[in-house]
């Protein structure tokens, strides 16, 4: 069933400090927060807004570092073993590849999504957001990245994979000598960087300055009108 979506824009409120809680819909007024301060819903205690200090610069620095670590983590071996003179190594991607070849394509796709693709999107989107948001009036595509960033974060499971790899490592250690690879340590650092990005980024700050969909459409309509009449 395809749904036909509305084509008109809602009318914004004149009072921008009025918000509704995403978890209980309670209407309330956001106080003007000092950097580092946070506001919580008076009914369900959901955090409504946390104003971050120097958000864009810090997030940019952390995202750049995360991008570098991500590339390293995916290009060097993560885990190796050695038993009776034989050695074997695997990378992050190698794990998904082996599953695929073994006929477990669906699970392989899920591992690829959660360990490779979603983390890349999570870091890449954030880099795009903070770079473009430095402009006075961030362009509309920043909104598209902002919208998909939480989805990428939900499915990015580096920290879960790391725990899984550690369990596998101990399991294998029972009958072979395991060799922790460089990627294992890089991924450990990456987990902290991703948490740092989460803790330094303030989406509200970017949304407050972004170009509105409505005005973009009106500008587009005005351009068309100008073209038609010229």
């Amino acid at each position, binding site marked *: 069933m395809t*749904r036909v*979506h*509305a*084509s*008109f*824009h*809602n*009318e*914004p*409120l004149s009072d921008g400090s*009025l918000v*509704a809680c*995403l*978890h*209980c*819909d*309670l*209407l309330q007024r956001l106080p003007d927060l000092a950097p580092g301060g946070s506001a919580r819903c008076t*009914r*369900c*205690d959901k955090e409504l807004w946390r104003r971050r200090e120097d958000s864009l610069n810090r997030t940019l620095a952390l995202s750049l570092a995360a991008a570098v670590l991500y590339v390293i983590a995916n290009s060097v071996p993560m*885990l190796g*073993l050695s*038993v*009776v003179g*034989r050695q*074997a190594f*695997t990378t992050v991607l190698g*794990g*998904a*590849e*082996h*599953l695929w070849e*073994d006929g*477990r394509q669906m*699970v392989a796709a*899920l591992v690829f999504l959660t360990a490779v693709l979603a983390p890349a999107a999570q870091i890449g989107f954030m880099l795009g957001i903070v770079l473009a948001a430095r402009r006075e009036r961030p362009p509309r595509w920043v*909104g598209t990245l*902002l*919208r998909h960033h939480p989805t990428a974060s*939900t499915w990015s*499971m580096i920290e*879960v*994979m790391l*725990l*899984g*790899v*550690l*369990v*596998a490592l*101990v*399991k*294998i250690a029972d*009958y072979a000598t395991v060799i922790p690879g460089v990627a294992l340590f890089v991924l450990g650092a990456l987990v902290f960087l991703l948490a740092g990005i989460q803790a330094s980024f303030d*989406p*509200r700050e970017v*949304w407050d300055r*972004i170009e*509105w*969909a409505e005005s973009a459409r009106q500008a587009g309509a005005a351009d068309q009108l100008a073209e038609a009449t010229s």
Partner: protein
Amino acid sequence: MSPAVVTAMQLGLQNCEVCGLLSRPPPGEEEGRCPRCDETLEFRKPRSLERTWAYLIGAAICYIPANLLPVLTTTTAAGADSDTILQGVVLLWSPTGWPLSLIVLIASIMIPSAKILALAYLLITVQRGSVKNNEQRIRLYRMVKFIGRWSMVDVFVDTFTAALVQLQPLMSVEPGPGLFFFAAVVVLTMLAVESFDPRLIWDSVSAREVRDA
């Protein structure tokens, strides 16, 4: 009574889940677009209860083969040996290995079943219009949302064990058919959480306060 508790829906306002902007749809309309980020807006997630139930029932069905079918098959010179998730936990249990065994037990067996039960409880109480334990129920929702991803641990354990232990003819480990169903349980419960609208928990109490006011 003071009308202290007013929701956006009661005032005919729609909250954008993407950018957090409040806006008013044209009179008589149930659906509009966010003037800031262009997201389609409705007062509540569309067909939230039906969709959450659908994902949840799917997850509950997959939960059975996920626990009965082997997730790993180990082949050695002595023959092949298949283990289910629970057998994997037992195998890992040793004087030194028990903390890891406990991690797998919690992440692979306790979290998925607790998640299915918790979501069913939330759905049933919302459908019955419950006005009790709202704070506890919203906390339960947040916990389920936060903890759900950790169930993926076993998928990664099996993936990398199988990828690494390829020492034919000495020993090799291959993923079993149970892994697919187990991964399906994790994905379906995550989708169920995403489609559940937590505001539904509070709608009955909001309606009652309006009636009593």
